[in-house]
């Protein structure tokens, strides 16, 4: 990092992702916070700042309400909102506070209750009986979803993947289902994933079609879950126990970008340029290159999204994402394992938790604590999330040398 103060992950936790009919979002967040504090060997009294994310709770799981469950210490709380990049934004906020020298320890938490909410996106086409009347910035006389293309996520991200194929003159869509096959296979080793079932290519393509080429298992799984991280300054960490220093994970890069103008971005959100920009900054900050990465957790909100991010994160040469996948590289025994957690398609995607949970996954491997799914000898990893609108968070994480 360019600033003098290093920032480390001291403690981190994710709940199992899945269905929690008896726990609300505040309970889930509190569980993750309590476990993250315990993981770091500290308490709420040590925390100088909190950043909290929860998109669908309408404020019910604000940082304030979470602290009412775990310790109302009066510290500043930043409730952050950045679509699917909300969790990474919470981490980024705490990193900035520590690097600014205002605090030496902070807490990031993200939580979502999503199981059973169904398709996220707009609906309704207006009521012509009430009279066609122009409304909104486009002067539309009715709902535009389904009449001017799609605004729903499965179709938006389907177009992202199809555009990549078109750009590079490819036509075979089978790669997308095979990416999904990989992630569902990876999830069988992750006891915290919402789904742990391997699926064959045929099972995937013959499942319910949502938005061609994305079938249901190729879409991120709506589920409940929370994740929390305790971050600490490098100078504070030096005063802590050997065990804490050994398990701490260095945040070698912490980057948040938004989408710069591109010609087509008004009709299809551009998830590429801001990811490429974030990756470039992250590699510069950390001095780590794509070839150094032992594992990557990237934002596979749909199978069609994972493909483009191989390229955007520089895991392959420009235009080579399909052959990168076909080489076997992103499988857990490949050159650059991608989404060994099962990814959003199988581990699940409780939106605001996602950008902390993928950092947890990387830390789990760098600490050598990932059990049967451990990537042996992992020393450096990258976590990436995208929120439409758009925001991109990239964190590069490195194992402690202690």
């Amino acid at each position, binding site marked *: 990092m360019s600033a003098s103060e290093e920032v480390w992950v001291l403690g981190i936790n994710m709940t199992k992702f899945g269905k929690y009919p008896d726990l609300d979002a505040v309970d889930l967040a509190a569980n993750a916070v309590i476990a993250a504090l315990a993981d770091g060997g500290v308490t709420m009294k040590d925390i100088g700042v909190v950043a909290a994310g929860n998109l669908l709770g309408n404020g019910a799981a604000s940082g304030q309400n979470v602290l009412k469950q775990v310790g109302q210490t009066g510290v500043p709380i930043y409730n952050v909102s950045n679509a699917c990049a909300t969790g990474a934004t919470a981490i980024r906020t705490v990193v900035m506070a520590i690097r600014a020298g205002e605090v030496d320890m902070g807490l990031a938490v993200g939580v979502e209750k999503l199981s059973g909410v169904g398709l996220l*996106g707009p609906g309704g086409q207006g009521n012509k009986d009430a009279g066609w009347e122009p409304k909104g910035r486009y*002067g*539309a006389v009715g709902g535009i979803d389904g009449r*001017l293309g*799609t605004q729903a996520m499965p*179709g938006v991200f389907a177009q992202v993947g199809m555009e990549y194929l078109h750009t590079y003159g490819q036509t075979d869509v089978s790669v997308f289902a095979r990416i999904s096959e990989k992630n569902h296979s990876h999830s069988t080793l992750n006891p915290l994933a919402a789904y742990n079932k391997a699926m064959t290519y045929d099972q995937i393509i013959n499942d319910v*079609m949502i*938005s061609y080429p994305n079938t249901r298992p190729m879409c991120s799984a709506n589920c409940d879950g929370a994740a929390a991280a305790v971050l600490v300054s490098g100078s504070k960490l030096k005063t802590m126990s050997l065990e804490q220093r050994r398990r701490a994970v260095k945040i070698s890069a912490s980057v948040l970008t938004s989408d710069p103008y591109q010609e*087509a971005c008004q009709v299809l959100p551009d998830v590429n340029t801001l990811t490429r920009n974030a990756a470039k900054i992250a590699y510069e900050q950390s001095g780590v290159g794509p070839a150094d990465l032992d594992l990557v957790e990237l934002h596979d909100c749909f199978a069609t999204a994972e493909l483009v991010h191989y390229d955007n994160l520089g895991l392959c040469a420009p235009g080579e994402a399909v052959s990168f996948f076909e080489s076997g590289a992103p499988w857990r025994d490949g050159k650059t394992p991608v989404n060994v957690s099962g990814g959003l398609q199988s581990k699940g995607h409780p939106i605001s938790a996602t950008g902390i949970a993928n950092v947890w996954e990387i830390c789990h491997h760098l600490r050598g604590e990932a059990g049967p799914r451990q990537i042996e000898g992992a020393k450096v990893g990258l976590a990436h999330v995208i929120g439409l609108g758009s925001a991109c968070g990239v964190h590069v994480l490195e194992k402690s040398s202690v």
Partner: protein
Amino acid sequence: MTNNSTATQIPFVGYLELNDGEPHLVAHECRSCGARFFDRRNLCANCSGAEFKSVAVATHGTLRSFSIVAFAGPGVEVPFVAALVDCDGTTVRGNLINCDPTPDAVHLGMAVRLATYSLGADSNGVEAINYGFEPDLGKETR
């Protein structure tokens, strides 16, 4: 459609022009950098320029991306083909119409052209006209 139907038509969106020659789309183009927008912008998103002019968007293009949407929100009829069309350098979003919503019928890079269709009349007899893109059978697909 009645004889005076043109007087009681309304475009589905403000940027669809029905009364100035053949139906076409109209964009706000930044006078400084040429970036085009279908909605109003306070300043240009690309260069922060403050002046815009209205320009007609090409009515022929190629299919840059698509998805065949089989599952959608309440009230949205499925399946439909959501399309991104490159209209001579301006990318436009719309449905692919007059084409089977199947992977066999839709191809990346296929030639398409703007077409309009009626969404029906409201209780005042005003008919909403929307645009989509249809296969341009006069052109070879590439």
